[in-house]
C-alpha cells in the first residue's frame, strides 16, 4: 500500500462516528453557557433569552461586565419555547427573558418564587423583506399573493404564534415556504434573499438595519407581545443584573434596539 492510500477499514468507521455525532441539532447559541454554573458560582450570571433580545441583551451584558469586576454574564439565545423547555428539564439558569407570555406556561409554577419578575419591553409584528423588496410588498394584504415566498417562525414559538394570529385576523393565508425555529433564523432567510417576506418583530427589523426593509403592520391588525424577565435566585449578582436590565440602562438599550417601553 502506498503511504497516501488511506486504509478504509480504519478511516470509514472513524469518519462515520465523527459525522453522525456532528448532526445533532443545536440552538442558535448552543447550551455552552448553561454548563458554566448557576447562582453564586464564581459570579457567573447565566441568562437564557428570546432570540429577539440578542442585540440589546448582548450589549447590556457587556456593559454590566465592564462595570462589575469579576462578574461574568453568560448568554444563550434561542426560541423562548426551547429555552423554557430547557429550564423545565433542569438547565442551569439565573435569568430568563421570554418573548410573550406563552412560553412561561412551560416553566414550573414556582420557578421564580425565590427571585422575581418584571416586564422589560413590548414588541409588535412587522414584515421584513430583502432590502430591494423584490416582491413589492407594501402591506399585510400583499402577503396573500401566492407568488411570494413567505417565511414564518414555527407554530410552536412566540413569533410564529404572533404571526399566525395577525394573519388569521386579517384572513390572509400566504404561501409559506418555511417555518423556522426562532425569529433570527426567520429573519436570516430574508437577509440572504431566499424569501420574499418574513414576519418577524419590529425590533428585529430595527436590529437588522439596512439588511432588510421593514413593512409595518397597522396597530389595528397587529398584536403586541410583552417581554417578561424572570430571575430565579436572590444572589446579588443575579438580582443586580436583573435590576440593570429592568432599570434605565436596560430601558435605553431596549428602546435603541426597537423595543417599545413596557
Amino acid at each position: 500500500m502506498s503511504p497516501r492510500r488511506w486504509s478504509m477499514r480504519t478511516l470509514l468507521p472513524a469518519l462515520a462516528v465523527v459525522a453522525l455525532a456532528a448532526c445533532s441539532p443545536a440552538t442558535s447559541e448552543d447550551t455552552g453557557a448553561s454548563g458554566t454554573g448557576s447562582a453564586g458560582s464564581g459570579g457567573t450570571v447565566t441568562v437564557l433569552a428570546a432570540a429577539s433580545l440578542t442585540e440589546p441583551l448582548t450589549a447590556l451584558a457587556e456593559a454590566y461586565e465592564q462595570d462589575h469586576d469579576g462578574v461574568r454574564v453568560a448568554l444563550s439565545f434561542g426560541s423562548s419555547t426551547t429555552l423554557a423547555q430547557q429550564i423545565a428539564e433542569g438547565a442551569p439558569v439565573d435569568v430568563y427573558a421570554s418573548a410573550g407570555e406563552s412560553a412561561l406556561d412551560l416553566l414550573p409554577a414556582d420557578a421564580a418564587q425565590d427571585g422575581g419578575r418584571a416586564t422589560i419591553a413590548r414588541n409588535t409584528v412587522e414584515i421584513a423583506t430583502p432590502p430591494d423588496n423584490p416582491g413589492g410588498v407594501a402591506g399585510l394584504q400583499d402577503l396573500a399573493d401566492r407568488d411570494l415566498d413567505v417565511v414564518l417562525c414555527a407554530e410552536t414559538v412566540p413569533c410564529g404564534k404572533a404571526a399566525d394570529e395577525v394573519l388569521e385576523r386579517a384572513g390572509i393565508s400566504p404561501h409559506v415556504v418555511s417555518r423556522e425555529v426562532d425569529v433570527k433564523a426567520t429573519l436570516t432567510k430574508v437577509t440572504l434573499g431566499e424569501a420574499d417576506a418574513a414576519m418577524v418583530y419590529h425590533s428585529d427589523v430595527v436590529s437588522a438595519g439596512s439588511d432588510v426593509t421593514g413593512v409595518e403592520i397597522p396597530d389595528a391588525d397587529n398584536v403586541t407581545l410583552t417581554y417578561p424577565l424572570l430571575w430565579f435566585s436572590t444572589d446579588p449578582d443575579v438580582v443586580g443584573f436583573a435590576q440593570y436590565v429592568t432599570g434605565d440602562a436596560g430601558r435605553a438599550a431596549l428602546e435603541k434596539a426597537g423595543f417599545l417601553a413596557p
Partner: protein
Amino acid sequence: MTPRRPGPTRLALLAPAALAVALVVLPMLGLLARTDWGALGTHLRAPVVWPAIRLSVLTTLVTVALCFVLGTPLAWLLSRARGAVATWLRALMTVPVVLPPVVGGVALLMAFGRRGVVGRPVFEAFGVSLPFTPTAVVLAQLFVSMPFFVLAVEGAMRSVDERYDAVAATLGASPLRIFTRVALPLAGPGILSGAALAWARALGEFGATITFAGNFAGTTQTAPLAVYVALQNDPQAAIALSLAMLLVSLLVLGLLRGRWLR
C-alpha cells in the same frame, strides 16, 4: 492458566470503558424510559409524524439512488487513478464528512440559493429557486452522504485486483464494460455497505437541511427536523418519532452486521 484476578491495571481500564458504554447507552435507555408506551400509537399518529417519515423515506431513497448513479463512477475512477489530482480530489470529497452540517447548509445556500453562484442565474433565467423544496432536502443529504458512499465504494474497488481489468481488456472489453461487468459485481458488497452508510447519514441529516431547505411540514420537514420542532409543543410525539428513528437505525446496523461489526 489460572484466571487472573482483576488487578489495578485492569480496573484502571475498566472504569473508563464502562463510562464510555454508559455515555452511549444511557441516552438510548432514557428515550425508552420516557416513552409513554400505552399512548405510543396515538403519538405516532400525531399530525407531525407521518408527513415527516414519508418525506424522510422518499428523500433518502432518492439520495442513495443518486449516490449510486453519480458516486460509483467517481469511486471507480478514483480507485484506478494515480497522481496528485486523484489525491486532492479524494481529500476534497472527504471534506463534508468533517464539516459541520450547518456550514454545509450555508455553503449550499451560497451556491444554490436564490442569490447563490449557481442559483442566481438559474432563478433569473427560469424563475426556479431551490431552497424550501424537497429537491433542496435531497441536495443537502447528497452533500453530507456522498463522501461516505464514494469512500466506501472506492475502498471496495481498490481491493478488486487490477489484473482482472487487464485480463478483461486483453479479451477486448471496453473500459465501460470492465466497469459494469468486472468492477461493479466484485465491489457489490462494498457498494451495499456504502449505500447503507450514506442512507443512514442522509436520514440523520439536520443542520444542512434546516439551513438550506428550511422547515415546512410535508415539503422540507424531515423526521429529525420534526423531532426538534415537536419537542417544543408535543414532546411525546417527538419521543415517538425518535423511537421510530432509533428502530430504523438498529435495522440498518443489523443489515451492516458482519461488515462493520465483525
